[in-house]
């Protein structure tokens, strides 16, 4: 089994540092939003977590496609690692969103398309994990997982557009403003800097976690191999 790469150790330290700086920026560097007050600060990590969630599911779908084409077990490990990390961050995204929505929309939850899509997406990947846990044969588990990761990812935009046939109240901070959205605000330059920094930080967290999780998957495979060897003797 390969030793932990030095680059990974360096990345660990960089990511931790970035996270500390990002947290400081969110609380002290970014100015307070005039209308919403302190609760607006949740926005920086909320969007960043959502971005990492989507990135994780995209990586999983791509890895699934490569697995189906090559049948190389490495890509199966990448796929399941990306889904697991994506789920954690998608959950953080939904929870932080709820915390913001309570004072701003006066409700923890609304059936807004974005909220609905985010939750259905979480359920898709929960189903993905249940599907995998129900199959013993590793190659079948990998094939079915890959197929479901691809179908699940393609269903996300369809869910979004179908839910969008109802009216939305979720603010669109980046891009065009929408009449009727509640909690809309324009970012000042300091806010933009904090926001971009959070995005970069979370992307680093994603890369580091993915790397660690892939390593863990490979080690688990190695342990399985050793177990089989002992069983043979």
């Amino acid at each position, binding site marked *: 089994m390969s030793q932990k790469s030095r680059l990974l150790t360096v990345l660990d330290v960089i990511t931790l540092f970035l996270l500390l700086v990002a947290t400081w920026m969110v609380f002290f560097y970014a100015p307070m939003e005039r209308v919403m007050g302190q609760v607006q600060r949740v926005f920086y990590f909320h969007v960043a977590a959502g971005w990492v969630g989507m990135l994780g599911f995209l990586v999983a779908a791509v890895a699934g496609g490569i697995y*189906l084409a090559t049948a190389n077990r490495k890509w199966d490990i990448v796929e399941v690692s990306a889904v697991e990390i994506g789920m954690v961050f998608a959950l953080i995204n939904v929870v932080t969103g709820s915390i913001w929505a309570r004072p701003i929309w006066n409700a923890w939850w609304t059936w807004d398309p974005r909220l609905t899509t985010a939750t*259905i997406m979480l*359920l*898709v990947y*929960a*189903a993905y994990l*249940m*599907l995998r846990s*129900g*199959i*013993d044969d590793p190659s*079948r588990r990998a*094939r*079915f997982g*890959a*197929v*479901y990761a*691809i*179908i*699940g990812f*393609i*269903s996300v935009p*369809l*869910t979004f*557009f*179908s*839910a969008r*046939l109802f009216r939305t109240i979720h603010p669109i901070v980046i891009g065009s403003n929408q009449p009727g959205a509640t909690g809309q605000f324009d970012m000042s330059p300091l806010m933009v800097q904090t926001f971009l920094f959070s995005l970069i930080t979370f992307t680093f967290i994603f890369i580091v976690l993915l790397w660690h999780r892939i390593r863990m998957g490979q080690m688990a495979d190695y342990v399985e191999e050793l177990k089989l060897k002992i069983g043979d003797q």
Partner: protein
Amino acid sequence: MDNRPVLVDRPTFWRAMWAIVWKDMAAELRSRELISAMFVFALLVIIIFNFALDLDPGTRTAPSITSGVLWVTFTFAGTIGLNRSMATEKDRGCLDGLLLAPVDRSAIYFGKVIGNLVFMLLVEAILFPIYSILYNVNLFNPGLIFITILGSIGYVAVGTLLASMAVQTRTRDVLLPILLFPIVIPIIIGAVKGSTAFLQGLPMSEIWPYINLLIVFDVVYTTLAFLVFDYIVEE
């Protein structure tokens, strides 16, 4: 002595597909277990809805209630049908036999889809008049029937694929709805909204978005399932 290899007459795609559809129809005609199970289950769901939602004469004819109850019923009954249809293939090793046959794998997929679609449409065709009588609403609306067909196609296309996955797992029947429902939510939304719009008699310009959504869903999922089905049945 003629040493040329014997050329087996490899059935064409269409012949293989129709053979599978015919097999499902013949088996169903003799046992009648799939359609009767789906139908009785659907009827029970409709009756439970009557009490669960406490539908009085004023609300039960409302278009949104009608399409909602109908689509929940179709979704649940469809799951039963899909599970049963794939489980019978798996149970006595029929699927392995089908896979050994020298036919294109996608012919098996489309054969099963058409079979399942016929069963689902039949159950819907029986339920429509019964629902009309029980709830005193007229469901003989060409638009509503069109939406029902579009919705069923998408549901069955992705449902057949996921059911062939679910039957090969340890948790089988339990897993299918969990795999299927989050994926078919867009089609449920489109079908419910479209059915409501037709029942309300809205102008076509307001109904087109739902029809388009259903068509996009049907095309995307049929294509996708066609592309990946090989990996599901591979041994």
